């Protein structure tokens, strides 16, 4: 490189740089170029889909196997109850793990800007800052919705014949499956947007991912474990994003749970509040 020749400086040909202004569609296009230029993006998207499909296949096989066992012992059959809802939930059964993968991807969309110093280039080009934040939000929303839809559909396609082999019927148009699918997509979008907001607030990939995992794994487990000791803990738990999201996916209300419209509000709040907080902090803090 040290021998590479630098050309004599010359002024650009008239109009070589065009005359375009800074615009939101331009910023969005820039974000998509950056997003898909990283190898990690495709790896994490593929990992999300693989995990979803694998869980659906494994789940279908497990349900079928336990049905076979139940046929031999009537007591066990009685304890299992109706398998219809469990079957309908098969295509979304991998969400608990897949959410963390795509959530981590969403954290890094923001945090990597700061970790690598790319934020300097980004925010010199877009000094108003907000267009970058909302372009990333829109992009993450679109990408996570598409990835969730594709992986749920693929999971359905893989789980249906396996379940069919055990005489379990997986009906695409059933109310339970339709609800699980569309709320499942919304759920993934929520996780991703919380992840992106965490990335913007903490500016650190590891920190953002740890907090995201704590929010969706550790906190529900810990609160669930102690909820027997304190009634208010069980009540507070209903406002965690994964609890509200999971409840929203069910057709039947759990006893003591929130109304569905309340669950919807909780999910909406978990999307809006972190995003607004992150947008405000991004505007105020130095890059």
């Amino acid at each position, binding site marked *: 490189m040290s021998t590479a020749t630098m050309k004599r400086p010359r002024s650009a040909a008239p109009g*070589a740089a065009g005359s*375009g202004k800074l615009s939101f569609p331009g910023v969005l296009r820039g974000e998509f170029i950056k997003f898909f230029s990283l190898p990690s993006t495709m790896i994490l998207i593929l990992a999300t889909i693989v995990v979803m499909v694998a869980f659906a296949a494994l789940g279908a096989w497990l349900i079928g196997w336990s049905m076979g066992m139940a046929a031999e012992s009537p007591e066990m059959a009685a304890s299992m109850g109706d398998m219809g809802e469990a079957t309908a939930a098969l295509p979304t059964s991998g969400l608990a793990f897949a959410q963390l993968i795509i959530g981590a991807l969403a954290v890094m969309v923001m945090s990597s800007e700061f970790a690598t110093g790319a934020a300097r280039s980004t925010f010199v080009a877009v000094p108003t800052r907000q267009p970058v934040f909302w372009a990333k939000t829109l992009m993450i929303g679109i990408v996570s919705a598409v990835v969730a839809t594709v992986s749920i559909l693929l999971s359905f396609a893989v789980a249906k014949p396996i379940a069919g082999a055990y005489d379990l019927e997986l009906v695409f148009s059933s109310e339970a499956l339709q609800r699980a699918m569309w709320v499942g997509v919304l759920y993934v979008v929520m996780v991703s947007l919380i992840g992106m907001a965490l990335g913007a607030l903490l500016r650190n990939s590891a920190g953002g991912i740890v907090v995201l995992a704590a929010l969706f794994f550790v906190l529900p487990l810990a609160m669930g474990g102690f909820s027997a000791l304190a009634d208010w803990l069980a009540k507070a738990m209903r406002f965690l994003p994964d609890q509200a999201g999971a409840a929203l996916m069910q057709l039947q209300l759990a006893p003591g749970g929130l109304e569905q419209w309340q669950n919807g509000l909780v999910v909406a709040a978990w999307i809006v509040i972190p995003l607004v907080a992150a947008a405000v902090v991004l505007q105020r803090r130095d890059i």
Partner: protein
Amino acid sequence: MITAEALTKNYGTKRAVDGVTFTVQPGKVTGFLGPNGAGKSTTMRMVVGLDRPSFGNVTVNGRRYAEHAAPLREVGALLEAKSVHKSRSARTHLRALAATHSIPNTRVDEVIELTGLGAVASKKVGGFSLGMGQRLGIAVALLGDPQTLILDEPVNGLDPEGVLWVRNLARHQASQGKTVFISSHLMSEMALTADHLIVIGRGRIIADAPIEQIIGGSNVPTCRVKTDSAEDLMNALAAENVQLTRVDAQTIQVAGLDGRAIATRALDRQILLYELTPVKQSLEEAYMALTQDEVEYHSHLGNELAATSTGKQG
């Protein structure tokens, strides 16, 4: 044109930039000179809005940078080499930035050629040397063909050819009527590149003047004289505004008289001079003289203590 008014930046209790007021004129290369930690980078970051001023304000061509409709066409900035994701190629980085302002990809290829990055444009930036990172940073700065260039230590890590190229680029852009603002801690480089100098130390402007004036310093003519009759000559030259320094047995440094005056007086006393040399202060010396009290990090403990006490007085 860049205009800063009482620009101030505090980081916690530390004041990095302390009420600086200056104007960077178009059509000139303005050097921004100061020791490490003097506040150069912070000032430049405030110009492009990465840092928010604690007090005061700074405008580019009459507006805050963020208020321009096409910021990249207004200002091109190189702030730190490798302001790029390591796993991204140089070309993708440029294209993503170009997309924000609808700058065509042909312009991206053009700045890649212009900065000599053609051979490595498709490679990941993580493997770039410091010099290549600088070239990419300059390519980003040139992308929007801006009216104003802000380059923070652009020659860091460049080979001699690259240094020359940056110098020519800066001079060429200025000759086109553009505003060029370059920071450096290398005085020798600034002496060759800049028309005007703004010297900063400990967050304050120490000097803001055309480069000749700073090199000229106090404007007192100084000469170095050699003679075998040093004592006689010193008696002959002694006067109220003349400062005489005996360098060695034959050599005297005379400040306050020009060569003609010294020679005339020597002739009157029949003193033979066999050397008479005007001493010009170099930019290095001028800079050291200007910044000796303002250096943030001294290399010796004694100086450090001195600097601390100066700091307390200030």
